């Protein structure tokens, strides 16, 4: 059970919006929606990316924000990159679901939505040209901060309206942590179960170094998908996260560092 990056060929690259692209590898892998891959660029580094497409091809959807993703964006069809995984605990499938994706957070939700039976899908972005997968999931409800498309407001505002009228078996969410925290709080008030996919700094990816710890839970092994029961035990959820050294900072500072 060696877990060493294997080099795979980039089969094709799809532009999702100006700062987001999906990279497809030829390989078919055994994956549960919500799991992630460790992606290695030799000489540069290795980072986690959620699987956004599964099947004959495997895809990851990447938001350009720093030097690693910048390098990925410079790659062309036929180039090779290292991949190990899949890692982590994916989403548990429940009927009568609502799925909420903010920005690039829709990535891990893609394959989930395809497995669910007629879920209500909410896709959000700052403005209409930032929307991801709105064609892939044509029936999705859209929310934009500036109102340039669909509902005018945050995804969470839209969700709030929706759950007032309908009781869901499960709410799935991924996006900025502040958004996921808001979803969780809303669900708690409402008595609805939810599952969210968290991000923390990942090193080993297989549950040994402890670096991705969030109050005793490992993002890479217990997560990245956590359910309400687990989230309730996480004081740091929505508030604190660890930098590369292990120093704990506010989630806002972490997010800033993360996107610097």
């Amino acid at each position, binding site marked *: 059970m060696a877990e060493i990056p294997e080099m795979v060929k980039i089969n094709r690259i799809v532009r999702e919006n100006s700062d987001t692209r999906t990279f497809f590898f030829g390989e078919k892998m055994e994956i549960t929606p919500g799991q992630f891959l460790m992606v*290695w660029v*030799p000489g540069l580094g290795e980072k986690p990316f959620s699987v956004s497409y599964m099947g004959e091809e495997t895809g990851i959807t990447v938001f350009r924000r720093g030097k690693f993703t910048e390098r990925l964006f410079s790659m062309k069809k036929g180039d090779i990159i*290292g991949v190990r995984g899949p890692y982590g605990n994916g989403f548990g499938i429940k009927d009568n679901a609502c799925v909420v994706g903010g920005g690039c957070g829709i990535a891990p939700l893609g394959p989930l939505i395809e497995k669910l039976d007629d879920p209500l899908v909410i896709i959000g972005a700052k403005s209409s040209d930032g929307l991801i997968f709105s064609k892939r999931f044509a029936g999705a409800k859209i929310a934009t901060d500036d109102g340039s498309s669909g509902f005018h407001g945050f995804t969470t505002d839209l969700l709030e309206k929706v759950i007032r009228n309908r009781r869901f078996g499960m709410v799935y969410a991924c996006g900025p942590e502040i958004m996921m925290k808001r979803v969780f709080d809303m669900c708690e008030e409402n008595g609805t179960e939810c599952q969210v996919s968290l991000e923390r700094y990942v090193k080993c990816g*297989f*549950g040994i*170094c402890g670096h991705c710890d969030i*109050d005793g839970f490992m993002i890479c092994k217990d997560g990245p998908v956590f359910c309400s029961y687990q989230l309730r035990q996480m004081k740091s959820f929505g508030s604190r996260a660890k930098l590369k050294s292990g*120093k704990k900072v506010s989630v806002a500072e972490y997010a800033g560092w993360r996107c610097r």
Partner: protein
Amino acid sequence: MGLEVEISGLKLNNPTVLASGILGVSRKMIERVIDNGAGAVTIKSISYEGREGHNNPTVISMENGLMNAVGYSNPGAEESSKEFSGLNDMKAPVIASVIGQETGDFVKVVKALEKCGFSALEVPLSCPHTPGFGTLAGQDTPEKTGEITKAVCSATDLPVFVKLSPNTKNIGEVAMAAERAGASGITAVNTMGPGMVINIEARKPVLAFGVGGISGPALKPVAVRCVYDVYESVRIPVIGTGGVTNGRDAIEMIMAGASCVGIGSAVYYRGIDVFRKICAEMEEWMKKNGYKNIEEMVGAAHG
């Protein structure tokens, strides 16, 4: 029949000890490890100043072991003393792991962690992949080991375990230097090598640092030999660490001379409840083979 052990004054319900650098990054996490049956836990090594460590990839799994070059990432002594406070409440002894470049650095960390409630200190002088520390800084010579051990022992009343490298030529001599300088016990061993894995399609070493320390099954026979040698050289007890993955491995390590066993990579191979599993396997074997306690097995392979 019982698995309890006492080592340098520490009372453990069983001889499994979480090794440093595995999971031990937060209070919550070590609580979870204890809940999963560990007899004691060691936290990830702490330096005075925080360190980001090496870039990813930092840990990989080979066919027969792990290889890591985490590079001692840690938030520093101040931050850590906040994270690990009031440890007296814990249900098992918690051991702090203290690192430094200069001898004085170790002492500064010891002082900063003073009020946390640690039961013992471990001093690794044996990391094979972090410039400025361990073997790369020559901390594994008998002289340097003696010097650092002495300084740490003067700065604390807690038992001090000195953690040795399997890559040091005469490990027995280094253990003797630590014993002479006041160490209460020896942890043997840290990771082996270093080694290197090259991805031939990428034409590059996989670990960002190029090389890394080897742990897990590939390390076990070397670790057993080290423990055997240390046991012959000193009278202080040994925490036998390196490749212990199941109950038989633990007993092998104990027969080589260990009083308890460190467990690291096995968390990867068998999950976080590996402590409980190993204890159950040890008990079963001891019952079958007529052993009543751990003590009568310690060093049984000698002579």
